[in-house]
């Protein structure tokens, strides 16, 4: 069978997501549930298959058990292919010794043999923790049309937020002239989305050089892109129009979910032309009971709701008993909210139990001091007893 591929995707899914602690204690960030039915990794995987890229290497390192299970043979994304498909690539041992992935560039370097197997012209490097729908094939066309060595996807961000990102400075023809990682005084508002298309021969050269230079970071943003710029390679910025959200913090995770409930946010998960696929259990449809009050929310199959749900995202197999109240919250799969419990402005992890009478989170209007207010978080597999009160900003990672 013909093995050659035009483009191979490399998906960096090894990050710990330490700022999402409690949710990422035992689960890699790309495997965190999002939007009721998905996990973050569904977005790049679905974008790949919808863009016609059917060969994806997923680089894992941190707590890969749930993620590996989730990806499996790649079938839910149509990535179970005879030639190509999805391959999980953990760090491995060689005759020269074993090493962890030391940085994003090093992770790809260690898997050059995987890429070479498909003899691709282009490699697209993706992250596993962003919410967006993007046609990568258009970006690759842009890359080809510009005869580029590397193309970096960018999005226009508000100037006030620009210092959080890697910022690209471009000329009139979108050619990147300079790149600044988290600049204090940004001169441009084009932020890197962490999505790179490389001409493979070029990338290979820079990966080997970077490895030989033995820098501390071995990172795309810190090493590869600056080195290519310094050598005058053709780098272009591809401006993405549409919804894109980085979910690095608990607040942004909550906001990204709430975005789905807003009619003004252009992320349409109901569009059948660009589906975001997921692996999910076979569950019966949701049942909304006679005492339920459901508004402004998303609720997923297998759930049984007989309480009040408002401005919330409810994942699969969740039970919300009669008399329970869930507002402005995210409830992850398999969790039970018992009668009389109140959950507001909170994230509750998978398979947890919130007993009757427990009170989690608080609305910002009720907080005495606005600075003390924030999202309350309960991790996975946790029981919150009936007497417990979880304050705003509090993060619960053990039974209380």
């Amino acid at each position, binding site marked *: 069978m013909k093995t050659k591929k035009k483009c191979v995707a490399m998906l960096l899914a090894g990050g710990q997501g330490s700022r999402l602690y409690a949710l990422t204690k035992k689960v890699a960030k790309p495997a965190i549930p999002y939007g009721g039915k998905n996990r973050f990794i569904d977005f790049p995987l679905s974008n790949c298959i919808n863009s016609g890229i059917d060969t994806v290497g997923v680089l894992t390192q941190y707590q890969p058990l749930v993620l590996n299970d989730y990806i499996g043979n790649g079938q839910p994304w149509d990535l179970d292919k005879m030639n190509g498909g999805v391959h999980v690539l953990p760090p491995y041992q060689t005759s020269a010794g074993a090493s962890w992935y030391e940085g994003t560039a090093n992770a790809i370097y260690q898997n050059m043999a995987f890429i070479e197997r498909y003899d691709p012209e282009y490699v697209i490097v993706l992250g596993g923790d962003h919410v967006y729908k993007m046609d990568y094939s258009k970006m690759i066309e842009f890359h080809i049309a510009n005869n580029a060595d590397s193309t970096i996807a960018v999005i226009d961000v508000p100037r006030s937020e620009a210092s959080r990102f890697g910022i690209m400075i471009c000329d009139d023809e979108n050619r990147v002239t300079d790149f600044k990682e988290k600049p204090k005084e940004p001169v441009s508002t084009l932020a890197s989305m962490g999505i790179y298309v490389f001409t493979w021969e070029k990338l290979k050269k820079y990966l080997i050089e970077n490895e030989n230079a033995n820098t501390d970071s071995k990172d795309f943003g810190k090493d590869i892109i600056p080195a290519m710029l310094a050598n005058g390679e053709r780098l272009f910025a591809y401006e993405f129009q549409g919804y894109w959200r980085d979910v690095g913090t608990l607040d942004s995770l909550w906001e990204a979910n709430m975005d789905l409930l807003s009619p003004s946010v252009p992320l349409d998960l109901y569009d059948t032309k660009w589906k975001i696929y997921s692996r999910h259990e*076979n569950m019966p449809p949701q*049942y909304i009971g006679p005492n339920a009050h*459901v508004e402004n929310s998303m*609720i997923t199959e297998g759930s049984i709701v007989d309480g009040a749900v408002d401005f919330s995202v409810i994942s699969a197999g969740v039970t919300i008993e009669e008399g329970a109240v869930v507002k402005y919250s995210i409830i992850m799969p398999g969790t039970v909210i018992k009668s009389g419990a109140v959950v507001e402005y909170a994230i509750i992890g998978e398979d947890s139990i919130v007993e009757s009478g427990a009170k989690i989170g608080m609305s910002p209007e009720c907080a005495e001091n606005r600075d003390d207010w924030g999202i309350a978080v309960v991790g996975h597999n946790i029981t919150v007893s009936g007497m417990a009160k979880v304050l705003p900003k509090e993060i619960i990672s053990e039974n209380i």
Partner: protein
Amino acid sequence: MGINNNVLGLIFASVNDSAVIDLTKQRTMGSIPFGGRYRLIDFPLSNMVNSGIQEVGVITKSNYGSLMDHLGSGREWDLARKKGGLHLLPPFSHVGGGVYQGRLEALNNVWSFIDYTKSEYVIMSNCDFIANVDFSAALAAHKESGADITMIYAKGFYNANKNINTNILSINDDNVVTEILVHPDMLGECNICLDMFVMRTDFLKKIVREAASKNQCSLIRHVLQGRKDEFVFKAYEHKGVYFKIDSLEAYYKASLQLQNASVREGLFSTENPIYTKTGDNAPVKYGLETVVKNSTIADGCIIDGTVENCVLFRGVKIGKGSVVKNCVLMQGTVVGENCCLDSIVADKDVEISDDRVLTGSEEYPLYLGKKAKI
């Protein structure tokens, strides 16, 4: 789950199609949508898989496009196998012959498939009974009793005026079936045959061959009734919930029974799930000022109105200000704004424009055909 890897499952997807002529106009009994995201064949097929059966033949008659589309390679039931797996058996008739009339004839038509199997036992089922049946236990009972055929039945209410195509069993204290009656003129509690049978493959081959030689086609008339003194037929009771789909009214009532917790738990246990083709739909989205009560709703729906006591299939849209009560709306039904619907069964992709008022009744739900525009 028992290790029943020496059992062949046989499903008749088209038997009794004519009972629900509205719903089977463009499909088989087995591909009638049910319960928000399922098709009727999902129940016997999942029951077989949950009992450890790894080889299933699906016998069809006509209009089986939707069935083939639904089943595909059988992957969702874990039946996309090298060894065994799912086999679709469309009608095959010898030169000059027509499409089969009864189950024995149908089996004779797929003789090479039955002759080829190495499975020692056969379990067969139609698609017009909805139940979560433990075939493992029925098979164990069959092996222990030494019967020629074990019939699965349930105790239930029978009304000759309403329940067509129903077979009633008389059973003695030793669980021996002494008589099987086809649609008798009776009313009351009966032993209702679920038309699920367990037997040895050799026995099946024997009765199929013998029937073919005598130009007989009906399993019930020519074997279960005609040869009852010759063979031993035993009964196995299914104690859980079941529904028989023998009219549009029965379909409608069974659908609305899903709001009942005991029915839901009886049909969809977590230990023995019902598998189906996945649609990769997003969760249900509830808009501002929605009122939703006592309803079963599949993923992909967008609801902006009032929904009470309904079953909504995948991707149904209910517009603002609309009030939908006691309805079964199949996949892709779109209800506009300020509509008022009561006791409707809408087939797939029906469009109801703004301000419409449509009402059926509990006994005679109003049926709207596939892709109707109102």
